[in-house]
């Protein structure tokens, strides 16, 4: 019995807790990608860099607050700075829409042209982030580091394996739950949300019923930029902020959106967790886990690791390929691109 509990604790500590946090971050990112896809009908390559941009603004605001001696007690100061980051990123996103994307919507350009334009925006944002904050790594988490330390958990339960829960992990999950709940309420119940769903479903019909396309697009950008800033800040708090990492996040985020069914918000959330848990589960070394649940006193020779941790990004992509081959619309029946 204790062995089983130990095995569970071990798995929670190294796979389930980090997977939940990472999955929430991916889900928030994938929601933004899916939203832009269903309203503006292109895959936004700049989304990873939008996350970096939002996180950067939040970090700058955090430093400013810290220099003034403002803090949120046990919580990270970044949570207080988050609204500033969101406002800045929303303004930037609206400016890019005004200067770049609006023209292509007007001439009804092919979606591949919009995609290409988003590559240009990606370069611009990437350049801005690196010039302003530099390409290096930044840590900005402050406040209480742990909710439960592994040692405390061991003393509390008397198990050999501990579970540590970092504040940032708990905050990530809580914030993600709140944001996703708000977003779903907005899309299902509010007038604007319904208009957006109608527009995504059938553009011509929506226009005929008097839905204002400019307003729908505006709201889509506001939501996408907000989600990107929150996702970027949470990821930065949980791990650390480095511009290049955010660029690399693009692949698992796209994978999450497509695996869930692109254009489907519920799918984006599910896809985020599928990708996160597969990455964690496949690259985790199960040696000690099997030691606990296997026959007494027997421990496998190797690490019992399916793939080395360096193949993390490859995992998300392999899942993507499998889903594309077996169920091209994704788990929740999104659109076919």
């Amino acid at each position: 019995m204790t062995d089983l509990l130990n095995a569970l604790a071990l798995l929670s500590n190294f796979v389930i807790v980090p997977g939940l946090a990472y999955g929430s971050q991916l889900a928030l990112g994938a929601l933004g990608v899916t939203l832009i896809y269903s309203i503006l009908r292109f895959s936004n390559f700049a989304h990873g860099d939008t996350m970096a941009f939002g996180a950067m603004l939040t970090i700058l605001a955090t430093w400013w607050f810290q220099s003034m001696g403002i803090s949120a007690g046990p919580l990270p100061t970044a949570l207080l700075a988050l609204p500033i980051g969101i406002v800045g990123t929303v303004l930037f996103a609206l400016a890019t829409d005004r200067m770049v994307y609006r023209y292509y919507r007007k001439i009804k350009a092919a979606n591949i042209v919009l995609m290409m334009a988003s590559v240009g925006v990606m370069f611009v944002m990437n350049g801005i982030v690196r010039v302003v904050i530099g390409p290096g790594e930044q840590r900005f988490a402050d406040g209480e580091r742990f909710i439960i330390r592994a040692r405390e958990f061991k003393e509390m339960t008397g198990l050999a394996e501990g579970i540590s829960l970092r504040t940032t992990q708990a905050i990530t999950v809580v914030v993600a739950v709140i944001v996703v709940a708000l977003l779903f309420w907005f899309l299902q119940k509010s007038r604007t949300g319904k208009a957006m769903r109608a527009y995504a479903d059938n553009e011509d019909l929506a226009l005929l019923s008097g839905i204002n396309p400019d307003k729908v697009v505006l709201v889509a950008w506001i939501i996408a930029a907000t989600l990107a800033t929150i996702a970027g800040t949470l990821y930065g708090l949980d791990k650390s902020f480095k511009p290049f990492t955010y660029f690399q996040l693009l692949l698992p985020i796209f994978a999450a959106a497509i695996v869930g069914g692109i254009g489907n918000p519920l799918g984006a959330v599910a896809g985020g967790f599928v990708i996160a848990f597969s990455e964690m589960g496949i690259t985790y070394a199960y040696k000690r886990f099997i030691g606990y649940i296997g026959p007494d006193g027997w421990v496998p020779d190797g690490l019992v690791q399916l793939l080395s941790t360096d193949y993390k990004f490859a995992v998300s992509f392999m899942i993507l390929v499998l889903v594309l081959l077996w169920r091209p619309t994704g788990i929740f029946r999104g659109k076919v691109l």
Partner: protein
Amino acid sequence: MRNIILFGLMGLALVAAGEFQSWPFALTILNLCLISAVMALGVNIQWGYAGIFNVGIMGFAALGGVAAVLVNAAPVPEAWAAGGAGIGASLLAALAVIGLIVLIRKKLSGQLRRYATIAAVIGGYFAVREVYDPAVAAIEAIDPAKTGYLGGLGLPIIFSWAVGGAFAAGGAWVVGKVALGLRSDYLAIATLGISEIIIAVLKNEDWLTRGVKNVSTLKPDVPTAIELQGADWFLGVATWLDADPVAASGIAVKLFYAVLFALVLAGLMWFAERALKSPWGRMMRAIRDNRDAAEAMGKNVTRRHLQTFVIGSAVVGIAGAMLTTMDAQFTPGSYNPLRFTFLIWVMVIVGGSGNNWGSVLGGFLIWFVWIEAERFGPIVMELVTSGMDPESPLRTNLLDSAAHLRLFLMGAILLLVLRFSPRGLIPEK
């Protein structure tokens, strides 16, 4: 006429860089311009001829680099003795597992087929790992500071250009089989993912390419600067030209490469232009402009797309091998999608998609700007911030990261060209 002027201006810019900065510097730019032009040509074959949006250029360039290692690096007999048989056995085992899966899919049906396939995949994976892991460990244990890998064939590196093309073509065939049936968005994301996987494999499979420990013992075929300085004929030429032999030898080596690269580019250009003007080229453009109509006329669109994808990727692979040849080292850690994928796209779009001359010009121009912007970024920033307090942390921070302004510049160029001149500098006829 316009084209000649544009290329003339490009040449002048390079000469100016030589005159005002330094000649070795200008020649380095020229060599990389030539390589970039070859890469842009390969992408243009895919995008301009067939409308395939490939965002995995980095992966194919890296496959070319691997070819340079496998062809040129000195073989490591101890490693072969320690693990060669094991690697071979695991390859055979992998083939056997694949054969078994194919057999299961053919002979069985229904639920049983699904479960048998899953069981074969999982069982086969562990069986192959059982052979593969000890072999890898044995190879990587052989003098890890110097070798720790199987090494190459020890052949002249110039062969690797063709081999690199073949590697990239083989990779592209597999990728295309899986991904080309998808629409543009999926294809883009799929190729982006595959290129990341290729880089991940190269970084981590140390037995093959030494991974992040890099292979820096490649030996180029052209004489090195040191060898030239010892050669009588070269000293004779240098005195006749009244030049400093040390400086002249560096320039001479770079010129050798420039001539070789230019020959490759010219050959590929000739093929590409011929292909574009042939019935095959007309068919490709018909497919690109109206896929359904071409299909109705009986053209096998998927097949032609696969063909173009393979050819274009092979060209990128050749360029990748040339790049590794010039660097004389293979560093998997240096492959970055911004530089190796998206920058090439900027070249193609700016030059003029669908026009081979356009993508060559784009390759030259964008690489030139990319390098010069790194130099001029700090100078511009110095001017912009000159009104600020020299000690202010904001100013030092901006000066430190000014080199990254070039990313901003590239994005701005791409956006401006897409908006105001979507057909590029040399539009398709």
